[in-house]
């Protein structure tokens, strides 16, 4: 493996980690509510702005601003669930009866609303978030990386691991998984499905906002900054298997590495097409994704 290949692999894995932070939340929402949240990218955007403005305008230390961005995203997620999502499933116990076309319209509307709200209130100008460390270049063998990017990657690994552990072993995580498997069954077993949905939206919003905050020194927050990562997340969720968290993580890392190598060895112009080509191949030959289950409803 040459120096450039190591560089590309490291860059691809780091990019994949950031994709994963976004995609996990989207996957969780799909798992429990069977809807695609089209405003997911705007949670990311809100996180990037929250971190940047809290740190720069209020002078709050970056290590405090970072978790605060998570809190802002989680609060937005909770608010979205309570005000916009609950009518979707209130009174229904079966997925088949839920008004999922409503979710498409309302989340798409929320996305446009948030983009334009930020554009008008904060302004159209881009804001670069303060880095967690000022070191602009760190040499690790053949890899040259900014201190912030390296640290952000480490934090992303920790957050992904904690999230996966919480979902697998915590009390609320088990309830979320139960609702995800069978909403009616979970409800009959005494699980508050509405509360589980609210927790998932909070976690999803918090993770997306955290990803935006972590990357704000790299991506420079602007009103439409979340559009592109959201599109990647939709692809990843399908590749990993709708609703599967491990699938989302593996698909994120794989997509990051494929894009990184493909851009150099195939064509940079088509870098963003690689994910779409994979998506089409999966839909043709393995529509359930990497870890999804085949399902059929009559």
């Amino acid at each position, binding site marked *: 493996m040459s120096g450039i290949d190591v560089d590309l692999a490291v860059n691809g894995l780091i990019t994949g980690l950031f994709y994963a932070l976004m995609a996990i939340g989207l996957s969780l929402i799909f798992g429990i509510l069977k809807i695609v949240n089209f405003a997911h990218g705007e949670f990311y955007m809100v996180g990037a702005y929250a971190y940047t403005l809290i740190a720069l305008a209020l002078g709050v230390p970056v290590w405090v601003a970072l978790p605060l961005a998570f809190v802002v995203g989680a609060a937005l997620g909770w608010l979205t669930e309570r005000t916009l999502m609950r009518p979707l499933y209130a009174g229904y116990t079966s997925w088949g009866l839920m008004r999922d076309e409503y979710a498409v319209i309302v989340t798409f509307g929320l996305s446009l609303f948030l983009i334009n709200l930020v554009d008008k209130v904060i302004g159209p100008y*881009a804001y670069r978030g303060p880095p967690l460390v000022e070191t602009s270049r760190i040499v690790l063998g053949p890899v040259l990386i900014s201190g912030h990017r390296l640290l952000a990657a480490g934090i992303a690994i920790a957050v992904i691991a904690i999230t996966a552990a919480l979902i697998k072993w915590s009390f609320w995580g088990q309830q979320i998984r139960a609702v995800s498997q069978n909403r009616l069954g979970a409800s009959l077993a005494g699980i508050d499905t509405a509360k589980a949905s609210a927790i998932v939206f909070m976690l999803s919003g918090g993770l997306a906002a955290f990803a935006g905050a972590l990357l704000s020194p790299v991506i420079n927050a602007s009103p439409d900054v979340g559009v592109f990562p959201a599109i990647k997340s939709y692809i990843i969720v399908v590749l990993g298997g709708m609703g599967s968290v491990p699938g989302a993580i593996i698909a994120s890392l794989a997509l990051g590495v494929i894009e990184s190598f493909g851009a150099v060895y195939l064509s*940079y112009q088509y870098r963003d097409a690689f994910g779409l080509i994979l998506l089409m191949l999966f839909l043709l030959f393995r529509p359930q994704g990497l870890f999804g289950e085949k399902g059929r409803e009559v």
Partner: protein
Amino acid sequence: MAGLLRRDVLGLALTAAALMLPLTAQAADPIKVGVTITQSPPGSVVQGTQVKDGLEVAAKMINDAGGVDGRKIELVIEDTQGLPEKARAAVEKLITRDKVVAITGEHQSSAALAGIEVAHRYKIPYINTNAWSDAIREKGYPEVFNPGNYNSRVGAAAAQTMKELGAKRVLSFAENTDYGIGLAKAIGESLKKIAPGIEYKYETLDRASKDFLPAILPLRANPPDAIINLMLPPAAYIMMNQVYEQGVAPSAKTWLYDGSGLADYPDFWQNVKEAGKGMLVFGLYHPKMAQPPLGKQVGEAYTAKTKNEPNRLLFQAADSLFLIADAIKRAKSTEPEALIKALGETKYTGTRGEITFSKDKGFAFNQWLDVPYVTFQLTQVNQKVGDSALVSQPGQPLDASKLWKPAK
């Protein structure tokens, strides 16, 4: 008899007054000028805001001075989001519903290319404020006038600068738009003529992307002598930061040259910091440039209105509106045909110099060819454009002795 006459005279006077009413009202009606700009993403809202400010400053100056032949200028603004389909619809709406006498303000090439098709169909004057693509001029539409900059001009300027820097290998990072790709090609064409020995290539980057490292990493092993930025914010800022973090440019080996006029954006330094130090800039405005008195007036009015330093788009936008007002005055009409004829005969000293329109074919058609430009270098982080090193005055060669280069 005398009473009858008095009544008749009074009646005639009243009738005449009644007949005059519509004429008086018409004379007082504002002159509507259509404006298409980007006010929301994904286009450049920063540019749109600067153009809007410039047009409003110019409109206020015209109206405060009594308007055009007693009629006020009224701007009717439409948001295109920088999207061709929205631009097309906006121009259609402005012409058919708002009945504007001319269209101006456009600052993005893809949107302008769509908008001029509609203006051409309705034969309504279209003053292109800041869309640089040569393709707009090459259409040869008699309704479209270009007092702003154009790709061939930047191409020639960039090629000349590369030659004077002694570069052997040059790479452009161009955004995937008509503007970016057109400009990258224009630089290539100019280099073939001016400095055929320079090895040149360009890489097209997606303006919506946030990660350009796969395009940058291969440069570390063998960096070019100069990298030319042909992207707009925020993608341009992200690319610059990543080029800097990878130690590629600005560096002792590689110059960073900006062909997109980034340095006077109000958010420039907040977004790039160290990555902007040492950048050479193709500039359409510099406070140390010689300017006509109107330019000074517009700059002061803009600073009073926005508290910001003047910028190139302000002047380009103001000139666009001044040219329309000047053409209406000379044509003594707002009829499209008369206006187009008057615009074609323009000889007007605006904010940047004396503007005339060439009739040569190709990129020169209806173009003000002598748009003044300078080259300057940012030598400190957070440096104002006015404090930067002016290394080339309009029409003068680059003064290499004024250049600063990083130690490594």
